[in-house]
């Protein structure tokens, strides 16, 4: 196709265009680099801040070293880990961990919170997904806090290239090469492996050294994916998960219960259970902003889950979640939060020594009524 109008190129125009290219590079570069700055969090009173490298020095100074917050009540009880951000494009997971971090008052036991498990993956967006870079929450005082919406995979700037085939070291399982950058295919980790595998090793070391009794790995999934609004449990945590599922159903929160497949390796619910004494639990909520059927992808979709194509898919019976035109982030966070609190209750029924008493966590109804922003602390 011929151009609309002919303009003769010259050295002057080349210099002008080079300047434009460099300006554009500087602007976009700054934009991309902004995403690598960690999100600010305001831990509740009693939390102490650490880095994962304290448990595994193999990630010291790398892009995957990540903050670990601990609140120790001083009274013996259960040790529980809440981890969000395995996949930073699943925001209800990290926001639930942030909610516990900014609200929890632990009166018995020890609570560990890792809000941004794969810190490197928070620093970029997945290519060709058109995802927003940030999501925003308005607080009661009118201030606004933002959190990054990252990628499923470790940033290729930090770990590359992916092989054609990723071989999971502990099992020999073969997966697509891109899975090498997926934290939830890297467990139990490799001490001297690529960054993602070392990060997984760090998490394993924390669980082993701190004798974590119950470990949550929070996730979200596409509404058209069968394992959604679900708990996935290892054999050791299955009884507890079954009790929790029944209690949630009594409360009106519908929940699937899936056994951790023995032949799907590298995931927390399998490897943490096989390689440690913890009871691993993986939970999924339905996130239209990461699904394949979605239309326009922006912050509104992430926060509300409103999408006409998902509404149509729901009409056609193609989804695995009840979807009535939306699936708000508040609802997804409320599901995770309520489920975790029920797990704490059921854990004590199962073993009277395993007590984690946590106060000041909003109920499902409170989160739904007031929204997530109501429960975040102002930055100043």
């Amino acid at each position: 196709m011929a151009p609309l109008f002919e303009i003769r190129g010259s050295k002057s125009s080349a210099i002008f265009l080079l300047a434009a290219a460099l300006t554009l590079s500087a602007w976009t570069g700054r934009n991309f680099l902004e995403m690598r700055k960690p999100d600010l969090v305001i831990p509740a009173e009693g939390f102490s801040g650490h880095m994962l490298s304290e448990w595994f020095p193999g990630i010291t100074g790398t892009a995957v070293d990540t903050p670990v917050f601990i609140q120790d009540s001083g009274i013996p009880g259960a040790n529980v880990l809440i981890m969000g951000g395995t996949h930073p494009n699943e925001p209800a997971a990290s926001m639930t961990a942030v909610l516990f971090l900014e609200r929890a008052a632990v009166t018995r036991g020890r609570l560990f919170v890792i809000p941004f498990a794969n810190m490197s993956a928070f620093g970029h967006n997945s290519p060709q997904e058109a995802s927003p870079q940030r999501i925003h929450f308005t607080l009661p005082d009118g201030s606004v806090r933002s959190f990054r919406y990252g990628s499923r995979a470790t940033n290729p700037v930090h770990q590359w290239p992916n092989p054609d085939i990723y071989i999971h070291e502990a099992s020999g399982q073969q997966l697509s090469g891109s899975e090498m950058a997926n934290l939830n295919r890297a467990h139990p980790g490799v001490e001297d492996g690529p960054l993602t595998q070392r990060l997984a090793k760090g998490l394993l070391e924390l669980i082993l050294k701190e004798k974590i009794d119950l470990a949550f790995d929070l996730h979200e999934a596409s509404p058209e994916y069968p394992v959604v609004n679900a708990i996935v449990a290892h054999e050791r945590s299955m009884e507890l998960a079954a009790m929790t599922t029944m209690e949630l159903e009594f409360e009106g929160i519908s929940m699937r219960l899936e056994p951790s497949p023995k032949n799907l390796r590298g995931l927390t619910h399998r490897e943490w259970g096989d390689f440690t004494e913890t009871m691993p639990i993986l939970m999924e909520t339905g996130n239209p902003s990461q699904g394949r059927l979605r239309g326009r992808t922006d912050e509104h979709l992430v926060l509300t889950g409103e999408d006409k194509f998902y509404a149509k898919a729901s009409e056609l019976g193609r989804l695995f979640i009840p979807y009535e035109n939306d699936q708000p982030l508040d609802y997804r966070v409320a599901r995770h939060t309520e489920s975790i609190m029920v797990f704490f209750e059921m854990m004590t029924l199962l073993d009277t020594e395993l007590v984690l008493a946590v106060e000041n966590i909003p109920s499902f109804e409170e989160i739904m009524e007031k929204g997530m922003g109501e429960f975040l602390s102002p930055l100043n």
Partner: protein
Amino acid sequence: MMTLVYRGIALFILALVLRCMFREKDFWKQVTATMVIVPLVLRILLIK
């Protein structure tokens, strides 16, 4: 080491693009070169 080689290749391609851009007599092809320069610069600086 591999990253250094990668950056070297990207730098070499950038130099070729710039050479073509300054020799090009069609403005619109120069604009096309401009669009190629941006990702190359971001790659060389390991920003994206």
